[in-house]
């Protein structure tokens, strides 16, 4: 492992990251050599118009997809050097992923949904249930443990998804447009929850959004355009065009 080359202090470090998609018409480049470093405890918002490569970047950061070239160190580990099983392990214990569409299992009750990652880390049934109940209570849904996802509101479903992302005490939360399917009021509640996790528990958060008022919850803004970073700095100092809504 190339520990020496990867300063263990940062949670995310990407260098010269490229990504191309193979299509029938030939390779289509999406990311053109990105360099980003995220330190522990940071709250980063990624913005950019559709097709700018935000989601692609998120999928690579979440170890769901692999870069075409360039390097990615996650929590001090060279992701490119990891086996499929080791990547699964990283997704299980280092990263908590929150999706726009919640992605809960429709047939499983909320407790089982929240406890699902624990199955893959080999946690026994009793501990799984106990921790899932705890986590549900933390996101304010302690009384709905036995309900099914379609019995609760979208905002509540996203809370469940966040509880699931938190269950294995990840270092990093990756949220891909987590409020995209929610109304303004619910969005604020969800963002308040993220802020709390970031400020109180020190969890690093990287989130993709279209909306400036969502990005405003973050401390740092990364603006993508056509696969390149055109702004990377504090949200407060960002020029208005970097903060403008993208859809």
């Amino acid at each position, binding site marked *: 492992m190339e520990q020496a080359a990867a300063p263990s202090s940062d949670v995310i470090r990407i260098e010269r990251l490229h990504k191309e998609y193979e299509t029938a018409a030939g390779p289509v480049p999406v990311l053109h050599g990105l360099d980003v470093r995220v330190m522990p405890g940071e709250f980063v918002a990624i913005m950019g118009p559709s097709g700018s490569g935000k989601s692609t970047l998120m*999928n690579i950061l*979440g*170890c*769901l*997809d692999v870069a075409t070239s360039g390097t990615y160190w996650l929590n001090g580990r060279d992701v490119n050097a990891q086996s*499929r*099983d*080791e990547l*699964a*392990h990283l*997704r*299980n*214990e280092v990263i908590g*992923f929150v*999706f726009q569409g919640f*992605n*809960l*299992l429709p*047939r*499983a009750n909320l407790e089982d949904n929240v406890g*699902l*990652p624990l*199955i*893959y*880390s*080999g*946690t*026994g*049934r009793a501990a*799984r249930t106990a921790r899932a109940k705890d986590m549900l209570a933390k996101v304010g849904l302690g009384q709905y443990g036995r309900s099914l996802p379609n019995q609760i509101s979208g905002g509540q479903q996203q809370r469940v998804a966040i509880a*699931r*992302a938190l269950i*294995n005490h990840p270092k990093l939360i990756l949220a891909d447009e987590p409020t995209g399917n929610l109304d303004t009021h619910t969005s604020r509640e969800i963002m308040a929850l993220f802020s709390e996790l970031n400020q109180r528990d020190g969890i690093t958060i990287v989130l993709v959004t279209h909306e400036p008022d969502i990005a405003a919850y973050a401390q740092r803004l990364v603006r993508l355009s056509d696969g390149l970073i055109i702004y990377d700095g504090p949200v407060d100092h960002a020029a208005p065009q970097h903060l403008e809504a993208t859809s």
Partner: protein
Amino acid sequence: MSAGDGRMTFAGGMVFAMLSEAWQAMNANRMRTFLTMLGMIIGVGAVILMLAIGQGVRQKVESTIASMGSNLFIVLSGSTTSGGARMGFGAAPTLTLADAQAIEELPGVGAVAPAAPGTAQLVYGANNWSTSVYGTTPSYLVVRNWTLAEGAPFTESDVRSATRVALLGQTVVQNLFGNEDPVGRTIRIKDSPYLVLGVLAAKGQSLDGRDQDDTVLIPVTTAQRKLFGSQFQGSVRFMMVQATSAGVMPAVQKEMTDLLRQRHRIRQGEDDDFSIRNLTALMNTAATTAQVFSLMLGAIASISLVVGGIGIMNIMLVSVTERTREIGIRMAIGARAADVLLQFLLEAIMISLIGCVIGVVLGVGGAFLIYAVSGFNVVVTPVSIVMSFGVAAAIGIFFGWYPARKASRLKPIDALRYQ
């Protein structure tokens, strides 16, 4: 355990969790699960039932063979021609008691039982019954592997002095005596009194359906001189010869042929005036036929098992496609390829095994139903049940493997994006 990550690869808790997830998945689409299972149910049920029937036939044949006696030859006297009509084997009085004694001296021969059979009317009190009467020697009981239910057999000295004694078969006892104890009583055969020495144990039907218990045994000399006297003076119709083992039977057959040709002064090139049949070989043919029959039934039933397995594969493939997104979610939160594989494999095995349990119950129930309704001999062996479970598990693994592997090979991002 993969290096450093500290996770148990197949922790019991994980398997248990996956089993309960498999159960949930099966429960979510009950009708489909049931129809998938139906293939296994019919397959396993048919195999169990067919094996039970086949085994029943086999057992019946084998017990009949055992009742016949083992390593047996039957030596028949020759044919005779009467007015141009050939009378068939056993019609000519060519075999004698002396032949029987000579054969008994041959190496490899265990026992020889000459037989002078005939039909006679039996009378006891107000009852009468016509049956086959065998004049024979005490060896007959040995050769036929026959025991007495009560009383004692007649002896060599009874044969020497041609005494009027008899052993009765069960059917004869029922028809002449009813519930009365026949031992020590005197019956009349063709108007002469015979003392009943004993009763033969029940033997049931022979392979050709004759009632083997409808018979009376008397000393061969008594039959020759006193009962059927005028017909074949001093001759026997046939004799049963028991070899000491199955291995010596070909040699014994040749020795008997040589001996009898020599004793009967048959010149080279002339036909035998007797015929030797290897009864055991005939019986073995019957046993083999029954076995082939049993295998055929099982093989035909197995085809439905394979069809059931293909049904499972079909449904699992549909299930993998339907649940692609779910697979993506699971992978996104940390499921490894092996976890996904195991989950789908367990589901296939579970469908297969539950189908198997129901199939076994129905198969065994069907077998008993056949027995209860028709009295047909059916035998459900534990081996066939254990085998069914093994085969069902194997089918679950074999036909579940491909869909499960397909699921486990999905890339997380592709699976997540699947709509």
